[in-house]
C-alpha cells in the first residue's frame, strides 16, 4: 500500500497540468460566484482554520497575556483605582513570604500522587479481571463509565452526605463492623485522604477502560508462546502483558496526573478547602485569592506559577515516556 501522503502527491502531480489550461475559460463561463469560490479554494486552509485560530487567540492567548500583565500589578478589582505596577513583587512574595502557597503546593502534590497511584494500581487490576469473555461484559463496561460521566457536582454532594458523621452511610458501615465512627472530612488530619478516596472512586474506571482497550489490541502470539514454554499466569502478566500495554497505561496516567492537579469540583463541594486549610490545594487557593479576597494581581502571579508547574510536570512525564519508548 502506498502511504496516503505519497498518494496525494501523485494525484496533485497528475491533476495540475490537466486543470491549468481550462481554468481561465471556466472562470469566465461561471462568472462572479465561481470567482469567489476559487478565492475560497485557493485559501481553503485559512478559511477552515481561521475561526478556530481567532477563538484561540481571543479566548486563550489574550487572557494568558493579560494574566501576565496583571501578575506584575496590585489590583483588587475596583474600577476606581486601576492596577498599580509592582514589578516582580508578587512573585517574590510567593517564593519568600507565602507559607500558604507552599502548604497548598504540598497538598496538591500529595493529593495527586496518592490518587493517581491508587487509581493506576486498582485500574490495571480491574482491567486484567475484565479482560476475558463473559456474559454481561458490555453492561459492566457501561457501568464503569458512570462515575466519570455523572455530573461531578451531583456526585460530590452525595459524597458529602456519605461523609456526614451522624447521617452518612460510611459511619454506619464502620459501626456495623465494630469500629468507632470517624469525623471523615471534618477531621483535618484525614480530610485530604477522604478527597483522594472520592477522586479514586471517580477516575479509576478511566485507567481500567484505557488499559482494557490496550489489552484487547495486543497480539496473541507472545502469550501463546509463553504458555507453551510453561510460564505461570503471574509471570505472563509481569513479563509479557504489562510491558506490552505499558505505553497505553502511561498515556492515561499522564492525563490523569494533569487532571488531578486541577481538581476543583469535589473539593469545593465537599470541604471548600477546610477544615482550616487542610484540603486547600493550589487550584482552590488561587480561586479563593481571586474570587473571595479579590486579590486579582496576586492571584494572577499564583496562577502563572501553577501553570508552570502543570506544564513542567506534563513535559517531564511525557519526555520520560519518550525516553522509555526509544530505549
Amino acid at each position: 500500500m502506498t502511504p496516503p501522503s505519497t498518494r496525494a502527491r501523485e494525484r496533485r502531480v497528475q491533476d495540475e497540468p490537466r486543470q491549468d489550461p481550462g481554468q481561465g475559460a471556466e472562470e469566465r463561463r461561471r462568472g462572479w460566484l465561481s470567482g469567489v469560490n476559487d478565492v475560497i479554494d485557493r485559501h481553503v486552509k485559512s478559511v477552515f482554520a481561521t475561526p478556530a485560530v481567532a477563538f484561540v487567540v481571543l479566548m486563550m492567548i489574550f487572557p494568558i497575556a493579560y494574566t501576565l500583565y496583571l501578575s506584575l500589578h496590585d489590583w483588587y478589582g475596583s474600577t476606581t483605582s486601576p492596577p498599580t505596577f509592582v514589578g516582580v513583587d508578587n512573585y517574590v512574595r510567593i517564593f519568600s513570604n507565602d507559607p500558604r502557597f507552599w502548604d497548598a503546593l504540598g497538598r496538591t502534590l500529595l493529593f495527586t500522587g496518592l490518587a493517581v497511584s491508587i487509581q493506576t494500581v486498582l485500574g490495571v487490576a480491574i482491567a486484567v479481571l475484565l479482560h476475558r469473555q463473559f456474559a454481561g461484559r458490555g453492561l459492566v463496561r457501561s457501568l464503569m463509565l458512570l462515575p466519570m460521566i455523572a455530573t461531578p457536582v451531583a456526585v460530590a454532594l452525595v459524597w458529602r452526605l456519605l461523609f456526614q458523621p451522624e447521617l452518612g452511610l460510611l459511619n454506619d458501615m464502620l459501626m456495623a463492623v465494630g469500629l468507632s465512627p470517624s469525623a471523615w472530612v471534618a477531621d483535618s488530619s484525614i480530610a485530604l485522604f477522604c478527597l483522594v478516596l472520592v477522586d479514586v472512586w471517580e477516575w479509576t474506571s478511566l485507567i481500567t477502560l484505557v488499559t482494557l482497550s490496550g489489552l484487547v489490541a495486543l497480539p496473541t502470539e507472545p502469550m501463546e508462546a509463553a504458555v507453551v514454554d510453561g510460564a505461570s499466569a503471574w509471570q505472563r502478566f509481569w513479563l509479557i502483558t504489562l510491558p506490552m500495554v505499558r505505553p497505553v497505561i502511561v498515556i492515561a496516567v499522564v492525563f490523569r496526573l494533569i487532571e488531578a492537579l486541577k481538581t476543583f469540583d469535589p473539593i469545593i463541594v465537599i470541604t471548600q478547602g477546610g477544615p482550616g486549610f487542610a484540603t486547600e490545594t493550589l487550584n482552590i487557593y488561587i480561586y479563593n485569592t481571586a474570587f473571595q479576597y479579590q486579590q486579582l494581581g496576586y492571584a494572577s502571579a499564583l496562577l502563572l506559577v501553577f501553570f508552570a508547574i502543570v506544564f513542567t510536570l506534563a513535559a517531564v512525564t511525557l519526555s520520560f515516556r519518550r525516553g522509555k519508548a526509544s530505549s
Partner: protein
Amino acid sequence: MMTETQQQARRAYRRRALVRTAGFYLLLAFVLAPFMFVFLYMVATSFKSPLDINSGSFTLWFTPTLDNYRDVLLGTDFLAFTVNSLVVAGCSTLIALVIGLPAAFAIARYKMPRLGAVILSSRITPGIAFLIPWFIIFSQVGWIDTYQALILSHLLVNLPLVTYLMVSFFEDFPEELLDSAAVDGASAVGTFVKVVLPVTRGGIASAAILGFVFSWNNFLFSVVIAGRDTRTLPVAVFEFMSYGSINWGAICAAATVMTLPVIVLALLVQRHIVEGLAGGSLKG
C-alpha cells in the same frame, strides 16, 4: 465411546469451570459494588422522608415518597435552572461544531498539527487560568450573569473536545470520496458541506452529545460567571446547601434529576467517551 473414567474427568472439569465462573462473578460484584453504591445511595435517599434520612442508620427498607422531587421541581426555580443549562450547553455545543468541524478537517487533511496542539493545550491549562482574565473582562463590559458570557466560557470546554474527536473521524475519511468530488468540480467548501459532513454525521452526533454533556456538567466556569438569572443546574444545586439547614433528600432528588439525562446521553455514545475524557492521544 467414552469410558467411565473419561466421563468422570469431564464432569469434574465441568464442575471446576462452574465454580470458577461463580467465583469470577462474585469477584466482579465485589469490585463493582463500591462504584455503584454511590448512585444507589443517591437515588434511595432521594425517595426518603426527612425522618428516614435522619433516623441514623441506612436501610433500603423504607416507604418511598415523592416529596423531595415535589419540593425540588415545584418549590425552587428548577425549571429555570434547567432552561439555563439547556441554553448554555446547546448554544455552546452548536458554536463549537461550527468552529470546530472545519478546524478539525483542516488539522486532519491539510496537516496543521500546530493548530491541533494549541487547541489541545487548553485541556492541560488549568481552567482558572482563563477564568480570572475573563471574569475581569466580562465584569467590565457588564456581561457577568449573561448567557453570552457563559456560552463563550463553555466553548473553552467544548471546542477542544469537538475538534480532537472529529480529527480522528476526518483522518479516517475515505480518500476516494474526496477525489471523486474533486473530479466532479466541487469546491473544497462544497465538498466539505455536501460530502464530508453527511458521511461523518455519526461522528458529529457523538461529538455534539459529548460536548453537550461536558458543558452540562461544567461547574468551575458557571459558578464564577453565572449570576442570579443564569445559574445553571450544578451551580443552583450546589447553592441549595447554603440555605440554612441542608435538606439532603431534596439535594439527592436534584442530583438525580441533573445526572439522569447525562447518563442517558453518554451511554448512547459510550464508545467515544474514553477518547473524549482522555484527550486526543487515545482511542477508547
